[in-house]
């Protein structure tokens, strides 16, 4: 695991809202074990370095690419479910800007000869699925249930026990009184990758 690398763009301004929403979904569907706790957009990987290539070389070569870019805008919009490497993935799809697509292609172009990627899409950066993972490693039935509620295809609440419903109701009342907000879904959000 320690020799597995990922090249990611961090969420900037939207990070808190996305984390809050992911955590809310985890509680709502009792899927905390499947959640992504560090939301990001993956540009390349997971991958391992070819023999003879060091972390230092990786950083040096990425510097050459990254230096040509300013903040990378993208829009997070709606929900999507796909089959991932380790089971089903529920994610916020990302509408990439031209600069995000170009950066991804450049990173793939420069890293492909030096690495072995476990992500087949890294060989086809033009067809890359840009997304922010909400939950992964889910079985198909569980993922389909969550996805149908998130997308409004299933109007009824997910199967919650009476105690859980009471707890959720209480939380809503408390947060309204305190003037804080619970997560609401879904959002369309604009962000810019700064790092």
């Amino acid at each position, binding site marked *: *695991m*320690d*020799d*597995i*690398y*990922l*090249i*990611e763009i*961090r969420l*900037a*301004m*939207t990070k*808190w*809202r996305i984390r809050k929403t992911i955590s809310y979904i985890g509680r709502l569907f009792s899927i905390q074990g499947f959640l992504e706790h560090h939301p990001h957009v993956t540009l390349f*990987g997971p991958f391992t370095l070819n023999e003879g290539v060091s*972390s230092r070389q990786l*950083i040096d070569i*990425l*510097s050459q690419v*990254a*230096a040509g*870019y*300013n*903040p*990378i*805008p*993208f*829009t997070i919009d709606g929900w999507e479910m796909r089959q991932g490497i380790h089971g089903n993935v529920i994610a916020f799809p990302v*509408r*990439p*800007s031209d600069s*995000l697509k170009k950066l991804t292609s450049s990173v793939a172009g420069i890293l492909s000869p030096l690495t072995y990627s476990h992500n087949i899409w890294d060989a086809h950066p033009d067809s890359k699925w840009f997304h922010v993972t909400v939950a992964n490693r889910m079985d198909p039935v569980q993922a389909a249930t969550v996805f149908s509620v998130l997308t409004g295809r299933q109007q009824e609440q997910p199967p919650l026990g009476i105690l859980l419903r009471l707890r959720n109701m209480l939380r809503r009342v408390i947060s309204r009184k305190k*003037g*804080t*907000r619970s997560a*609401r879904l879904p*959002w*369309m*959000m*604009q*962000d*810019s*990758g*700064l*790092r």
Partner: protein
Amino acid sequence: MKGEDILTEYDLLEKRWISNDHSHSSKSWQKTLALFRQQSGFERLDPLPSPNEDIFLIADLHLGHANIIRYCSRPFLFSDVREMDHVLIKNWNYTISPANRVYYLGDLRYGTDALPALQYRQKLKGNITFVTGNHDDGVPDAVPSCLLDYGGFRFLLVHDPADCRPAFDGWVIHGHHHNNDLRHYPFIDFEHRRINVSAEVIGYCPVNLKDICELIREHMSRGDMTPILLKYPYCTE
């Protein structure tokens, strides 16, 4: 990332690698956000004077409200609400001349840490008409809504568009929704004739009504009813 850890981060604004030790420090992130605001036009660095007859609009500054930074993804450090207030007030005063008419569409300040509304008001230039928002108190001459004829259009200015009479057949300019529901409340919704001037939607600087009228005319003449989500560039693909 290497394994579960951040190996290093490249800052696209500062054009340098940030070692893991410093990547999450508030100071470092604050500096990055400030550069981002300045580069994106979310923070004015110089006054941009406009003709005296120009009319400006903005809503939902939420001065003094730290949580709004996280709730609405504002480009500020969460813990530094004073910096947010400073930039928003500076943006206002670099945009507005003392003779300009400004319509402020509600929610000037919020929370127990915020200054009284009158203190904020004294810092803002222009001939300001305050429209009441759901969080407003202490703005003595605020009005619930107002009508404005400008550029061949009739506008109703109100904080929450839900408070608009259904029979009104002009354009509603509103705030209240921030950037929380861009699908239903984008910057300009040509179909429902609604314009959202919440600070986050228009890039944290008051917007000139003349520019709004031009956008409406331009889109209507092309028959283009595609909403404009934000006043600043965004990804549409």
